[in-house]
């Protein structure tokens, strides 16, 4: 699959997980794209952990405001009904269970719902930023990522990178399919028709339980 199509496929599918009225935090990168595909009849409010709710689309060129950026330092806008606040309030929202969902990328995720997305020891140590709080506090944690890292497994029996949080992931959405974290392991509920069950099993280190009711992966 084309790289942009991969991203769009994932973002489109994540968008279908949103419910009307949800308050959601979308991580930097791929998760940000989800905002573009929210169904027309669904209204969600986006939170930006640097300090506001009501995150709107990027401003038109020339209309950027240096004092209004998202958590990735990109110029953005705020929608009517939005509000700004300090970092303390921002993480009271996040940790306090007020977010209906958070969507993040991952370096690794495993069948127990463990997530690793903040460091590769000795190599890359960006830091956890707000990710540990987001994953700990949000009502639903959705991992949105490309299924493998150039062929290397990212969905594992057990993460071997330092964890972001233990047992907090609810759902994994990749370009290959949709996997639910259950207490029996990862349940494949939807498969992208571009791939076979064998393909996705091969691309996954964790055991995949194939749903009796396996469906075609939706994108709208």
């Amino acid at each position, binding site marked *: 699959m084309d790289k942009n199509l991969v991203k769009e496929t994932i973002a489109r599918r994540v968008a279908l997980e949103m419910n009307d009225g949800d308050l959601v935090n979308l991580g930097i990168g791929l998760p940000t794209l989800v905002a573009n595909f929210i169904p027309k009849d669904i209204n969600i409010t986006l939170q930006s952990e640097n300090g506001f709710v009501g995150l709107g689309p990027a401003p038109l060129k020339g209309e950027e405001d240096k004092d209004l950026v998202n958590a990735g330092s990109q110029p953005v806008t705020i929608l009517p009904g939005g509000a700004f606040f300090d*970092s303390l309030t921002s993480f009271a929202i996040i940790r306090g269970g007020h977010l209906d969902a958070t969507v993040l990328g991952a370096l690794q995720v495993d069948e127990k719902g463990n997530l690793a997305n903040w460091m590769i020891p000795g190599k890359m140590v960006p*830091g956890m930023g707000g990710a540990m709080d987001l994953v700990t506090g949000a009502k639903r944690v959705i991992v949105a990522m490309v299924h493998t890292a150039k062929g290397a497994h990212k969905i594992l029996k057990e993460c071997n990178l330092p964890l972001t949080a233990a047992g907090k992931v609810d759902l994994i959405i990749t370009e290959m399919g949709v996997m639910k974290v259950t207490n029996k392991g990862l349940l494949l509920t939807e498969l992208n028709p571009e791939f076979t069950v064998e393909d996705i099993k091969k691309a996954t280190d964790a055991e995949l339980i194939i749903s009796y009711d396996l469906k075609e992966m939706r994108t709208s």
Partner: protein
Amino acid sequence: MNKVIDIEKFSNKIKDGMTIMIGGFLGNGTPETLIDAIVEKGVKNLTIIANDTAFVDKGIGKLIVNKQVKKVITSHIGTNKETGRQLNAGELEVVLVPQGTLAEQVRAGGAGLGGILTPTGLGTIVEENKQKIVVDGKEYLLETPIRADVALIAGSKVDKSGNAYHTKSTRNFNPLMATAADLVVVEAEKVVEIGEIDPDVVMTLGIFVDFVVRGETNG
């Protein structure tokens, strides 16, 4: 009380080895004029407490690039490659803290709390060497207060007594840090007279602020 001082007077207060909190989020709402003065002065062995280390040419990043920092307590260093390089080369100590925990620790330092209990970091390396406390059957990490010698914050509009208004996404850690340091200096994008900011909407209280410095671009 008029707390406005010039940048030289500010610069004189900053010494080698100080612990300094700096407001801002990736450089947004960061006191650039104050940072530039510290870069120019060249004091060394600073400990910096901040959300992130911004970029190599912006905000806190400039202090890192100029090798004035021996230790940084922060949630994110990914946008400044020099921080990572100095970390890997053993030139800089980096303590990574979850962002929400950092906010709570700074607040605890300013609010007279002995700490707070958070679930964030449980089951990760963040829990190393920390006390775990069970409340109502749930486990939490005890995170202790953080204070600094100096807090440097940025305000969009600041009255001469230090009451500050932070517009849009520039607020972030600024109001918290103002409570948790022995010396608090606010850089004002615009200085206004006492009474010009509606008392309902003061975001950083002047009672926490020792000095106000005009930012270079405005004020």
